């Protein structure tokens, strides 16, 4: 898999979540994603960016245009150095939350993405990688 283009954004305030949505939208449009695919990816990114901010205490988003067997995709890596997730399986259940939300962020983002990978170590942080292919 080749990386054609990459960029990173920091996620430290509310406004950064909006910026993440806009930037992911721009890239998805450039890649020629359908409107529904754009919307799914942007929504997933919005959920994950908020998790990075609220639960991870802030972090970064790495955006990459990836190429695999002539297919191009957008890969997003959200990373924080927060407290980590104690029980990953539980965190991925619909309706589970340790905060005040609906508990749909992680599980919903997984449903909205084609690739989804979550790694987390208690006290070290969390990394979520999602991708959508065109």
């Amino acid at each position, binding site marked *: 898999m080749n990386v054609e283009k990459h960029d990173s954004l920091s996620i430290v305030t509310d406004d950064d979540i909006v910026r993440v949505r806009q930037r992911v939208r721009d890239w998805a449009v450039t890649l020629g994603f359908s409107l529904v695919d754009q*919307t799914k990816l942007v929504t997933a990114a919005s*959920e994950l960016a908020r998790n990075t901010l609220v639960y991870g205490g802030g972090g970064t988003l790495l955006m990459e245009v990836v190429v695999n067997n002539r297919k191009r995709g957008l890969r997003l890596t959200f990373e924080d150095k927060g407290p980590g997730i104690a029980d990953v399986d539980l965190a991925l259940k619909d309706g589970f939350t340790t905060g005040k939300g609906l508990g749909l962020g992680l599980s919903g983002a997984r449903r909205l993405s084609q690739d989804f990978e979550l790694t987390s170590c208690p006290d070290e942080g969390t990394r979520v990688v999602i991708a959508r292919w065109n």
Partner: protein
Amino acid sequence: MERIPILKMGDILLVSIQVDMHDRLAMTLQDDLTSKIVATRARGVLIDISSLEVVDSFIGRMLANVAAMARVLDANTVVVGMRPAVAITLVELGLSLTGVRTALNVEHGMRLIRSDVERDGG
């Protein structure tokens, strides 16, 4: 501070969300709408989201909260103009917007609110 304008038309409050809201702005709108329902004794709230390209769980929850609070304050809420791509995404996200009434556009939404207000005895 940045705010989403709320218009009053008779006993109905109208809101058209035209910007990509950050979370604080969404919470401000929720609070403003709730106080304005009480201050103006509004019987209906119409929220136009036709400009919104994304409704994530946070904005979805805000819409559901407004509908629930309005209900307690004796006002009906209708959310209008949801884009098809947003509807598809919301369902896949797992957000059912329970308790939020929707209509295709402002015209239908107004009709819905009007008939509710008349039924409930104006």
